[in-house]
């Protein structure tokens, strides 16, 4: 839940028209949200706040009623391992590792997914042949799919996807969307997708304009 949240850099601005900033917003498990944003409206900042990467905001962000400013190292680590998964806009893959290793390094934390299932995802997303190629040799669109698989190999209550399909064609976007929905449903988790242009085709429960 966000309560009157605003990035510090926006503090001086007046006339902010937003469905999120300075509003009372609650994200619930099991629901799907789309945040549409023009660039420069603080989309990535919002996700950074939620994941605990940045703390330069005003107002409050709460998980199940607990203010995240009260979280210590152990709470954040647990949150990132078990409760909130994120697909970064800039992907944050490790270029020196292979695609599979990039997924494994995440999966080894919780041993959440079987190797077989991970391999199946690679196949379904059309990068089965790239499984053991170094990520740096892959196109951005291919890397986006690897990053998606990495985001799915952990238990989560919410999946945050920051512009997940910016470099994907329609067919691959569809596949990715269905995998994401399938996994989120299985876990009973909520999905928050951001987009500045074309957005993933999902049955959104609510759309916010940032």
């Amino acid at each position: 839940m966000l309560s009157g949240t605003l990035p510090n850099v926006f503090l001086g601005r007046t006339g902010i028209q937003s469905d999120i900033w300075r509003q009372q917003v609650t994200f619930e498990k099991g629901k799907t949200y789309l945040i549409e944003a023009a660039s420069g409206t603080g989309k990535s900042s919002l996700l950074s706040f939620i994941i605990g990467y940045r703390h330069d905001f005003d107002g409050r962000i709460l998980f199940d009623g607990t203010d995240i400013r009260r979280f210590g190292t152990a709470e954040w680590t647990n949150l990132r391992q078990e409760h909130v998964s994120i697909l970064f806009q800039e992907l944050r893959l490790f270029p020196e590792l292979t695609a599979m290793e990039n997924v494994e390094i995440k999966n080894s934390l919780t041993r959440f997914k079987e190797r077989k299932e991970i391999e199946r995802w690679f196949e379904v997303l059309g990068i089965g042949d790239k499984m053991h190629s170094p990520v740096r040799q892959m196109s951005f669109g291919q890397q986006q799919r690897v990053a998606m698989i990495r985001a799915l190999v952990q238990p989560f209550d919410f999946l945050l996807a920051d512009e997940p399909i910016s470099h994907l064609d329609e067919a691959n976007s569809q596949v990715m969307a269905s995998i994401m929905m399938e996994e989120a449903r299985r876990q009973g988790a909520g999905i928050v997708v951001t987009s500045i242009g074309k957005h993933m085709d999902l049955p959104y429960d609510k759309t916010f304009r940032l």
Partner: protein
Amino acid sequence: MRLVWKLLRRHISIGQLLGFFLAGLLGMTIVLLSLQFYRDVRPIFSEEDGIIRPDYLILNKKVSSLDAIGLGSAGTFSEREMKELESQPFAKRVGAFTASKYKVSCNMGIDGMAAFGTEMFFESVPDAFVDVNLQKWHFSEGDDVVPIILPKTYLAIYNFGFAQSQNLPKLSENVVGMVEMTITMRGNGLSESIKGRVTGFSSRLNTILAPESFIRWSNLRYAPEADTTPSRIILEVSNPADDSILHYINNKGYEMEEDKLDAGRMTFFLRLVAGIVMLVGLLISLLSFFILMLSIYLLVEKNTEKMRTLLLIGYSPSRVAMPYQLLTIGLNAAVLLLALGLLCLVRSLYMQRLRTVFPDVGGESILPALLFGLALFVAVSLANALIIRRRINTIWKG
């Protein structure tokens, strides 16, 4: 863990780590070696005397030229003088040296062959002044072995003078205890032999000491008429550094036997030199510690983004810090082990040398050096691990 290591080992500079390793090895080896060398060599300098305690003083009268022509008091202490000394505030106990008043000769043999024969004499002090197990320091009439204590210089004379020139083996104190000694006593028309066994060496006594009971018995037997007023006395004081002792002794015209070898000063210099060398070793170790930390800092700097990503996808700071912590601990352990190996090697070399001159050395264990090295390893590794963890924590905070 394997993947994390694969990720974080990038940018490791072998050159820097090698630099640390060599400097660390040098520092650690110098530290351990100085400690061990000090411990190995100290017994040679410190004439610790297990027989006559340092708060026992040995006094005699100055020998004047009158004594030489037989006109003085013969340098003996009268009953009255001893009573007066005993009543002084600094004195705790006074004992007289009693000398043998008959002719004594002694033959020493090794493997049944006579090797060394000399005229000699005995003296005794009250048994309470001799710090030897009283079971060993014991004689009663009818015994065929008499325990004796020799001055340490005798052993030195034998080892460095006699044995060397005659190609005889050098003897340690323990071996001398096994040497067979035949003592022949003549006087009062008798000539009898008895076995002697060396039970100890003293560096503070310039005499051959036998149990009091033996001297009393033998003087009665071989020289019943002789006068036994003492020419030397032994004095137990409460504080040997007390000025009034020296004052009294000078006033009375007595002389105090001083330790011939200024062991205290030698030990002081030994400690000073060993301390300086160890300090140099510690400085080099400290330097190597900084090299390692600098290297790790650079490594963390170059890998910061990767570490941040690891933290963001759910790795805890302790798991991210672990590869570098293990790396430093492993390096430190390698340094310790190799330094210990070098220590043993160098020690065996210098001990060989030392043993040819001082057969008694070598009883010191290397355990203290080992423990010191281990303590240094633990301290340095802990510091390393802590610094790395703090570095990761700053990444965590952004």
